[in-house]
């Protein structure tokens, strides 16, 4: 068992444990702050999958953008929102959690069964890519490849996603403005 494997197990344990905490806790603010830790551990997992640029993007956009946006949204929206949330959580302490838990557990069993049956390490195309040296070596610098690919092979999805991002910007600004007739 080498260092990378050990790091993988530590990271995945942190990610899964904090995700369970996020799902289990009653306190919304605490669950959001715990979600930070899940996202950081996931960024570590991306690094171990040799995707360092994706890991940095994860930290910048998810942790720096999305989570701060969620925090701002309900901390700036006044005390009534927080009170309403606290009230709701006290009302629903343990009603109807069992069916959801059963659904998630059964789905997990199905997924795990399928993953073990597929045996992803011995897939045809994975073997072929290892044979033809198409897999990423440990010391590869992939950021340049990503930049070149973004401007050549993946130009159409890049443009599509930029248009969609602008539409989302306009839509969010329109939805959250103060005036009448939204």
């Amino acid at each position, binding site marked *: 068992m080498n260092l990378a494997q050990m790091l*993988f197990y530590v990271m995945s344990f942190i990610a899964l444990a904090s995700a369970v905490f996020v799902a289990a806790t009653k306190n919304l603010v605490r669950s959001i702050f715990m*979600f930070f830790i899940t996202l950081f551990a996931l960024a570590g997992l991306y690094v171990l999958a040799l995707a360092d640029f994706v890991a940095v993007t994860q930290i910048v956009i998810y942790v720096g953008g999305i989570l701060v946006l969620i925090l701002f949204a309900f901390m700036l929206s006044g005390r009534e929102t927080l009170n309403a949330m606290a009230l709701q959580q006290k009302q629903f302490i343990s009603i109807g959690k069992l069916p959801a838990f059963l659904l998630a557990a059964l789905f997990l069993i199905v997924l795990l069964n399928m993953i073990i049956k597929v045996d992803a390490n011995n897939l045809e195309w994975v073997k072929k890519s290892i044979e033809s040296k198409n897999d990423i070596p440990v010391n590869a610098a*992939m950021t340049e490849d990503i930049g070149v690919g973004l401007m050549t092979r993946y130009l159409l999805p890049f443009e599509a996603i930029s248009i969609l991002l602008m539409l989302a*910007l306009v839509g969010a600004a329109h939805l959250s403005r103060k005036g009448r007739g939204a």
Partner: protein
Amino acid sequence: MISLTDFLIVSAVLFCIGLYMIVSKHNAIQILIGIELMLNAAILNLVAFGKYDRFNNGGQMFALFAIVLAAATTAVALAIILNVYKQYKTIDPGKIDKLKD
């Protein structure tokens, strides 16, 4: 090296935690967090398989696109949640059952 199956198992567990949150929570923001967990499980799969696609680099590229999409989704969803709270004074999706009040 770390085997592909390990990544798949971690992402399956994350996906199921997200599914549990979506089904069981009575708070729209927590449901949103559950959706983010499921998205992250999918991104982990993309990145793990992208290790075997060096020249086209499809896995990492679409992981980046998925992260950007998640950001756009969250912005719009939060704006909608705040508007719904202004209208109904609750953000429990089970109680929002009228198109027009």
